[in-house]
């Protein structure tokens, strides 16, 4: 029987960074992936002459080479910084609501302020105060709040994190309302909520503030070759360090002995021994289906009860036989809505009725190699909660999916009217497609619903089975930066456990 220090289940972002960190620190690690390719969401696929990015729209946390931010350090420590190339986006996004507003925000902290003030001069004071607040909240959340928590001192908290104390658990909407009058400005500044799938009234203000500040100050990025290039680079680094990977090989069971992890049973029936498992599969799958014969520990069951299922996505991957210019594209990322009402947009995310908004990303706008010469790689997304798809009969699935695709294209065509004329390749992905490729309930792409109640600050780590660790969008925030980081930090916790086990063995 093969034996490992650790088995990592799933090669999504968090699984990849966890496996790479474990192996590079000397733990003998087996990485299992159900699919033929690493990445989970962070992948690509080829149709005709096009290679489509599946999920990465804007990578955060990287910073520029001369003003680097945390992800450069993370990638460097994983041995992949020199294996990929990054491409900077120069705009945050274009927001177009026909008849109401059409604005492109620059990816620059000072430029953002300037643009907003130019457009809404009457709100200058609010704009300045709001942006300042975004910046301070970020600094407090990441620097001083952890310090104060470690010290356990309320005094420190109040002194070092005064803004966090005032705004940390306020909704994004209430803080936006406090600063601004004009509904257009409010929509414009909160547009990133569309990445989360939870409306501004239900997300904590720091979540929005971090996105605005991090993307504007540290820039949004793409990866050459797409997020697949990073997934492949991580596997390369993992293999170089001596790791073992198996594709087309799911984990069937996590085996335990006396309540602690003792091995993993593979799809092939084979059993491997290990005392540590890092599961990149959802905790629901991990505890309710993979864990052998046991009820999940009580605190885990209790935690599940206070969760709600997160959003999935409906995506149209378009290979177009025209240039971005011919399409009228002026920024890589656009949000196109039919209404300024967040609530109305959000309500539709739970139905198969025509969506009221969507996003368009044109990958070759800033990175010409992302499409063949003269052509364009364009991806349309609208977030959607997956449950509505469960009631679609299998025989109606294809019809329903194309009908919904037509409706999303209709929305986008109000701003980019030529999209349909130039289609050379198209692939439509529904929440069920996400379910198929991610193995997540309802096809969730960010884990549980990321409302204020989901905050990690309200929760304990999901443990109770010694040796079992979870790292994924489900255990913290969804998205690329958070999941890359979650895998790495989980590996550090797992490494401590592995070391302790080794010492124990040595002492017997």
């Amino acid at each position: 029987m093969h034996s490992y220090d650790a088995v990592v289940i799933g090669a999504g972002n968090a699984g990849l960074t966890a496996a790479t960190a474990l192996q590079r620190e000397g733990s003998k690690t087996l990485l299992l992936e159900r699919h033929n390719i690493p990445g989970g969401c962070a992948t690509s696929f080829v149709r005709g002459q096009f290679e489509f990015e599946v999920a990465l729209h804007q990578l955060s946390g990287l910073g520029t080479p001369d003003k680097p931010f945390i992800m450069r350090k993370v990638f460097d420590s994983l041995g992949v910084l020199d294996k990929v190339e990054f491409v900077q986006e120069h705009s945050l996004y274009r927001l177009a609501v026909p008849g109401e507003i059409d604005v492109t925000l620059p990816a620059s902290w000072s430029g953002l302020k300037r643009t907003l003030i130019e457009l809404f001069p009457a709100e200058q004071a609010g704009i300045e105060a709001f942006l300042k607040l975004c910046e301070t909240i970020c600094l407090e959340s990441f620097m001083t709040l952890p310090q104060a928590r470690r010290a356990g001192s309320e005094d420190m908290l109040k002194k070092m994190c005064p803004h966090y104390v005032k705004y940390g658990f306020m909704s994004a909407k209430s803080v936006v309302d406090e600063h601004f009058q004009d509904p257009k400005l409010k929509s414009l500044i909160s547009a990133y909520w569309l990445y989360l799938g939870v409306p501004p009234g239900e997300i904590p203000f720091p979540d929005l503030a971090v996105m605005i500040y991090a993307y504007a100050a540290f820039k949004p990025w793409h990866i050459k070759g797409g997020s697949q290039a990073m997934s492949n680079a991580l596997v390369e680094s993992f293999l170089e360090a001596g790791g073992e990977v198996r594709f087309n090989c799911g984990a069937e069971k996590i085996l335990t002995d006396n309540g602690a992890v003792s091995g993993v049973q593979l799809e092939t029936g084979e059993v491997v021994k290990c005392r540590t498992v890092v599961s990149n599969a959802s905790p629901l799958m991990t505890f309710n289906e993979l864990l052998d014969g046991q009820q999940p520990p009580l605190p885990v069951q209790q935690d599940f009860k206070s969760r709600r299922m997160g959003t999935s996505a409906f995506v149209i991957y378009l290979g177009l036989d025209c240039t971005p210019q011919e399409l009228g594209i002026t920024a890589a990322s656009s949000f196109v809505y039919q209404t300024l009402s967040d609530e109305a947009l959000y309500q539709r995310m739970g139905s198969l009725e025509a969506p009221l908004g969507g996003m368009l990303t044109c990958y070759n706008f800033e990175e010409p190699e992302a499409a063949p010469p003269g052509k364009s790689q364009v991806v349309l997304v609208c977030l959607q909660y997956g449950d509505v798809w469960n009631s679609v009969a299998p025989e109606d699935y294809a019809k329903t999916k194309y009908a919904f695709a037509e409706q999303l294209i209709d929305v986008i065509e109000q701003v980019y009217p030529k999209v349909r004329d130039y289609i050379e390749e198209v692939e439509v992905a529904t929440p069920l497609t996400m379910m198929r490729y991610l193995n997540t309930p309802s096809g969730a792409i960010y884990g549980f619903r990321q409302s204020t109640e989901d905050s990690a600050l309200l929760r304990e780590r999901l443990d109770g089975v010694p040796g079992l660790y979870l790292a994924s969008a489900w255990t913290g925030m969804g998205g690329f930066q958070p999941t890359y980081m979650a895998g790495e930090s989980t590996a550090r916790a797992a490494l401590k456990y592995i070391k302790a086990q080794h010492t124990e063995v040595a002492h017997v």
Partner: protein
Amino acid sequence: MSDNNLLNAVAGFRDAMAAKDALAQTGSDFTEVKGAVAKTISQLHPKRLALTVTQIVEDTPSTKTLRVAASDSRLLPPFQAGQYINVFVQINGVETARPYAVASSPCERRYYDLTIKRAQGGFVSHHLLDAVQVGDSLQSSGPMGSFHHNPVFHGDDLVFLAGGSGSVPARSMLLNILHNDLPFNFQLIYANSFVDDVIYADELRQLASEHANFRLDEIISRPPAGFTGRSGRLTGEVLRELLGEQLDGKMFYICGPTPFNNNCLEQLLALGVKRRRIRIEANGAPKSPDQQAGWPQGVSLDDEVTISVRGKGSFTAKVGEPLLNSLERNGYGAENACRSGECSLCRIKLLSGAVFNPTEAHLRKSDRDFGWIYSCVAFPTEDIEILL
């Protein structure tokens, strides 16, 4: 939570905690959705189908149609007309597989029809035609592939150029249109070498006479003496005559042997059809990769090379044999479905040495960069080591 009290000082924290506890009162531990993901996925995209052959019909001297049903008698998964399944077989101890388009209508889910034509020098087609009997069990993948009508942009004016067994997906598309009364025009231009090669001949002619929106044009390249039908090759001139002047808005599907596909593509482009209005079905690994640009000089298809599988062993193979095939013949294998360089399932890592990736290999950029190859269409041009 040790610092609970600490965060109580944060405005809104208590409310959030209370809201979370309230959710816990009405929420579930999700055990009721146990197995739901696996069930949903297997309804639409099962990894394997267990099939039983229920009927065999001889279509022509070189083709038979095998009707297969789910061994558990349930309905088979839905598919889009034009898609294929990959049929897994074991022949003389060798485990391999070949993709076959479904010939029957997607409206019929009690069975799939697979029309098998004898391939010259073939391996699996002989087995399916000569050894398989009614009542035998087969295994396959679920339905796959993107060679099907896509309502988002294909439109309603469809032309299918089929060569030989290339008419199989055309039949499924046609039946789908007729069964569902879709408002499409469907023209099938069907080329065969000999008159007795024409698969579904009577059925197609009958349907063409009954349905105004289906037009059938047959062409025979090697007609018998006294043949009165259309004969010769599908030249630009013939195509222009069959298609008429108005080509805008038409969608073209091409499926047949590689030379047929290349010829049709060339002719259509010459007639001014945009490449984006032409879909060509995948067609397995190329027979003559050495004719493609980039083939290394001095390497011949008959040369022998050594394939080492790290940690598992090694064997000798011919340069001209696709790597997946030689792996299978030597007791190794990789997951696969299209065996044509499109689905990526047979992706493996090349550790050393070189392979030739033909144009059929639809590799991702970063797979190329990091040495991942599609074994179904990779030709080892020197000794190689791979990771399985």
